[in-house]
């Protein structure tokens, strides 16, 4: 089996494979079925250049492609058949949409001859996916395939990245033609603005220099545009503290003296208070999601807001903005740094010095509030606390980094996810991968598969709840078939849909409706899949379990049976100001402006 000669007529399916290869794709995740069979028929001819990972559920294929994309910055590709195959992709597509993840989803469609007649496995996936894709295509003619595929990758990866769906009828995959590549893109309505407007850039620098209590908020855009170095330079030159959103974690190293940590619903008290007190808030690449802002009308009440975003529609959507800058985070930061370089040095210097008091003030708040959440003040009980798991993981991360060994963390959705964000130390971009905007339980295990295949030399930790794990654990079978060895799964097993239980405890009088949860013996399940599974119940066993999992050449599942009813604190109750934080059951942070 070999690919056809360049000038030979070939099938649409072969053209699809070649288009993928031309876009630099070497791995795709999917499941075959009737309407996509011609594509699968062609795949073996390209197998040395295009590796197909057979997942166990299309949702898994989609999340795996997302994990691949989020950890590499390249476009992830997933493939499914028509009808149920395509609808199973809806969740990961929506997830990618909410988190601006570059994804191309390819679905087979019934033949154009029967399209629109409720044919077997016909589903209007282009109609279904309109509100959750950046764009989508229905391809009915083989001649359209090269241009559509090129446009799809262009759209997915440029501007604000996002998912693009390409639905290709079976007859278009089967028809023959000689493809014409390299047709110019025909997207007259698509012109992302990359460079910040000069006057706005100048204005932003002036506002930052005039600020007494400035704050930088770094979001997903910093990671996506690869702006960490520029961000660091900008923060250091100005002496401005930096907070990182859930998707900004790793965009600014947490051990840096200017790093404050995460804001928002489960952010730190000192971070949220800093937001409420700051006089200038410089948001680069964050979208002021409600999990960050709390009640938007009382968010950062004293601040003039500078908002840098590649998507003009994000600016002014949730929070009023004084200085809007549309552009790519890295390019805008470069422009800001250039502008700053032309300002008189002593002025910049003086400003930086003046900020020391502001930073000291925030650090004082941090000392007052953060310790009780970050370091476990072990209660009388000796039972295993979630915090023990994270503390041990942190120790392992430090130890292995020191040896130059890479690692990445993929978290699922729930309490364990928030603890991961809060308690682990984030140092490098693209090492923290989670489902943020959509909050998709079941994300972590398949996403970890994608991350692991993209980074075979690193260790990938999937941190997952017992609830989310039971949604997509079948992808362990995919790991085994793919001979993936570098995934380590840590289940923070509390026997509950914990995050929902927490809300029920705090806000609904402990009515635990639909949240107590049983499961199989996860370690035994791991063994059934053919990987190592270990149950950990004692505090003293955590470090050794993590160490041996790391050392083991193969997938390992660690089932941490933690204390069941532990809450994630601090928490801003839904819809309230971020100035109002619960730090324990029924206890507000001292001095809250309630």
């Amino acid at each position: 089996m070999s690919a056809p000669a360049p000038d030979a007529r070939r099938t649409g399916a072969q053209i699809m494979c070649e288009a993928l290869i031309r876009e630099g794709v070497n791995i795709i995740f999917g499941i075959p079925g009737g309407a996509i069979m011609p594509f699968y028929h062609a795949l073996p001819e390209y197998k040395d250049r295009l590796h197909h990972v057979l997942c166990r559920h299309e949702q898994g294929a989609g999340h795996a492609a997302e994990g691949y994309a989020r950890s590499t910055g390249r476009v992830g590709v997933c493939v499914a058949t028509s009808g149920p195959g395509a609808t199973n992709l809806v969740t990961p597509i929506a997830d990618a949409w909410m988190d601006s993840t570059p994804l191309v989803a390819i679905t087979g469609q019934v033949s154009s001859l029967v399209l629109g007649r409720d044919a077997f496995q016909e589903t209007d996936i282009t109609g279904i996916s309109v509100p959750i894709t950046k764009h989508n295509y229905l391809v009915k003619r083989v001649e359209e395939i090269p241009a559509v595929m090129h446009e799809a990758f262009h759209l997915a990866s440029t501007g604000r990245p996002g998912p693009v769906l390409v639905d290709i009828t079976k007859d278009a995959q089967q028809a023959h033609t000689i493809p014409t590549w390299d047709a110019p893109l025909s997207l007259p309505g698509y012109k992302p603005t990359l460079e910040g407007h000069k006057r706005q850039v100048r204005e932003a620098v002036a506002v930052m220099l005039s600020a007494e209590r400035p704050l930088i908020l770094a979001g997903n855009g910093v990671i996506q545009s690869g702006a960490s170095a520029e961000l660091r330079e900008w923060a250091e030159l100005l002496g401005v503290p930096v907070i990182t959103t859930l998707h900004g974690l790793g965009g600014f190293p947490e051990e840096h003296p200017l790093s404050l940590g995460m804001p928002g619903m489960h952010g730190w008290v000192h971070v949220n208070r800093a937001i409420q007190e700051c006089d200038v808030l410089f948001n680069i690449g964050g979208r002021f999601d409600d999990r960050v802002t709390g009640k938007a009308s009382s968010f950062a009440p004293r601040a003039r807001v500078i908002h840098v975003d590649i998507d003009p529609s994000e600016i002014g959507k949730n929070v009023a903005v004084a200085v809007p800058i549309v552009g790519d985070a890295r390019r805008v930061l470069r422009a800001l740094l250039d502008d700053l370089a032309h300002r008189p040095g002593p002025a910049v210097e003086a400003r930086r010095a003046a900020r020391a008091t502001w930073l000291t003030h925030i650090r004082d708040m941090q000392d007052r509030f953060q310790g009780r959440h970050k370091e476990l003040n072990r209660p009388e009980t000796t039972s295993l606390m979630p915090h023990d798991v994270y503390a041990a993981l942190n120790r392992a991360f430090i130890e292995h980094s020191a040896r130059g060994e890479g690692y990445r963390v993929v978290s699922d959705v729930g309490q364990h996810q928030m603890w991961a964000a809060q308690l682990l130390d984030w140092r490098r971009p693209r090492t923290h991968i989670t489902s943020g905007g959509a909050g998709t339980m079941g994300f972590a295990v398949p996403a970890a598969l994608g991350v692991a295949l993209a980074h075979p030399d690193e260790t990938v930790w999937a941190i997952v709840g017992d609830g989310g794990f039971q949604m997509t654990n079948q992808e362990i079978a995919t790991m085994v078939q793919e001979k993936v060895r570098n995934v380590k799964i840590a289940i923070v097993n509390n026997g509950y849909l914990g995050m929902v239980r927490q809300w029920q405890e705090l806000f609904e009088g402990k009515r635990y409706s639909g949240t107590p949860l049983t499961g199989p013996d996860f370690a035994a399940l791991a063994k059934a899949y053919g990987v190592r599974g270990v149950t950990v119940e004692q505090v003293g066993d955590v470090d050794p379990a993590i160490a041996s999992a790391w050392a083991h050449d193969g997938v390992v599942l660690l089932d941490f049976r933690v204390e069941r009813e532990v809450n994630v604190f601090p928490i801003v109750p839904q819809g309230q100001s971020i100035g109002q934080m619960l730090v324990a059951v029924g206890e507000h942070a001292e001095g809250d402006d309630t």
Partner: protein
Amino acid sequence: MTHTIVALVQDHPGVLHRVISLIRRRGYNIESLTVGHSETPGVSRMTLVVEAENVEQVTKQLNRLIEVLKVFDVTNDPTVERETVLVKVQAPASARAGLIALTESAGARVADVGSNTMVLEVTDLPEKVEAFIDLCRPLGIKEMIRSGRIAMTRGSGGGAGARATGTPGGAAGRAAPTGQPVDSSPRPYRAQADGDE
């Protein structure tokens, strides 16, 4: 408040669905929407009349659609706006002369005469159309269809003759959060093309 938005879109299958889907999802209320060919082959022109607190969000969201070429909020621009209505009224032979006189005085036309009915047609400003319908009501309206509004700016301004929103520089100076009262005075738009100083 009610805004009139003109959008130039690529004439592709599904583009209307995308626009409607967006408007529905974001919770804006469409009062009227018309689509038709523009002066450029392959480009359709939509006129949307929407009820929205924060119209800047509407235009920016529309601009996000790949097949949307340009969006103009022409609410505060001098425009020519037109709407057509067809009204079928009872018209026994005895009443016809009176009806024809009324039609003429209102600037309308008789589009069809049936044995017992007449179809009257008027194309005018939306308020005039409204007034004409009121005039017809006592006559007994049997059927009615309004076309929805089309709009074009007066004079020789470029493109749709108005300011394109959301293009290069994006947001205007001050944007207000959604769901909050915004001042309805025309928002100063700052052109953000480079080199404007």
